[in-house]
């Protein structure tokens, strides 16, 4: 996904970026909890509206979409490594609905949670430090997670068609 920050760069003062980072780091730490916009904006120390606008301008997606993607990334990690059922993975990463989890996972990752788990079970875990996968964060099959599977169309479908920027 190409993020055109240039269009919006002036909107986010560099001094504000660490505050946005604190909120984003909180998502990374507490993704499994019930995080809402009010709490995240409070972490950044700015109003909800301004927080969403600046977060999206800086990171190319809204805070709640980033939260969803973090949960799905954590789900991928568990599906690769942990001996848990799909439902357990769903609940562990913070989703309350299995249907919603499976739909969002499939839309973003390009295959269902069970297919993803089974494919990795056949290969074993990746020989890549998990922290680097964590910070990479993305869920596209072209990058972080593709043993024996070529990149193909539909691997990195934005959750919202067309993405939130560049419209």
């Amino acid at each position, binding site marked *: 996904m190409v993020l055109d920050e240039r269009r919006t*760069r002036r909107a986010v003062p560099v001094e504000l*970026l660490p505050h946005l*980072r604190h909120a*984003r*780091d909180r998502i990374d730490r507490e993704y499994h909890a019930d995080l809402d916009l009010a709490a995240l904006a409070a972490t950044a120390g700015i109003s909800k509206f301004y927080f969403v606008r600046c977060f999206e301008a800086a990171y190319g997606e809204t805070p709640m979409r980033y939260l969803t993607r973090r949960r799905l990334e954590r789900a991928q990690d568990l599906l690769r490594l942990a001996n848990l059922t799909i439902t357990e993975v769903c609940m562990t990463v913070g989703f309350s609905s299995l249907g919603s989890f499976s739909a969002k996972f499939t839309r973003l990752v390009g295959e269902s949670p069970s297919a993803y788990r089974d494919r990795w079970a056949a290969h074993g*875990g990746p020989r890549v430090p*998990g922290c*680097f996968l964590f910070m990479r964060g993305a869920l596209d099959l072209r990058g972080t997670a593709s043993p024996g599977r070529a990149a193909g169309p539909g691997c990195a479908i934005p959750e919202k068609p067309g993405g939130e920027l560049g419209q």
Partner: protein
Amino acid sequence: MNWGNSLGRMITNVSLVTVWSLDQERSRDFYVDKLGFVVNTDAVMGDGFRWITVNHPDHPELEITLRPPGPPLDQEAAAFVRRELGKGHLGALGLQVDDCHKTFQELSAKGVEFVQEPADRPYGTEAIIRDDSGNWLVLVEKKEFRPLDAG
């Protein structure tokens, strides 16, 4: 061609790595006071150029230079690095620890920000922290890797 031998004669080890810093003195204090490193060199060269390196107390052979985004980067490039630091996108070092959970407790008590609390992996336990400039650093406690565990 025996690359092992020729390489061994040419390059013996890594001696210097660069970590971006938004404020060299603040970064020096972070690496010394929070992480337990020691100052190796702190020299002012004039024209605003200050060279600060730190190292792990047991490993003076590997210096870490705390480098502000400035010349030879042009202003646009330096601003880009500052913004990426601010956003938290830049990663710096991997740091080996004896006991990741214990280090997590100690560094948390010192006010170090964690991005990821210690997490068990097939090859060890890892956590991710932020330095004062926003770089992410990895703390890793290695154990013998047994691929079967990953299944």
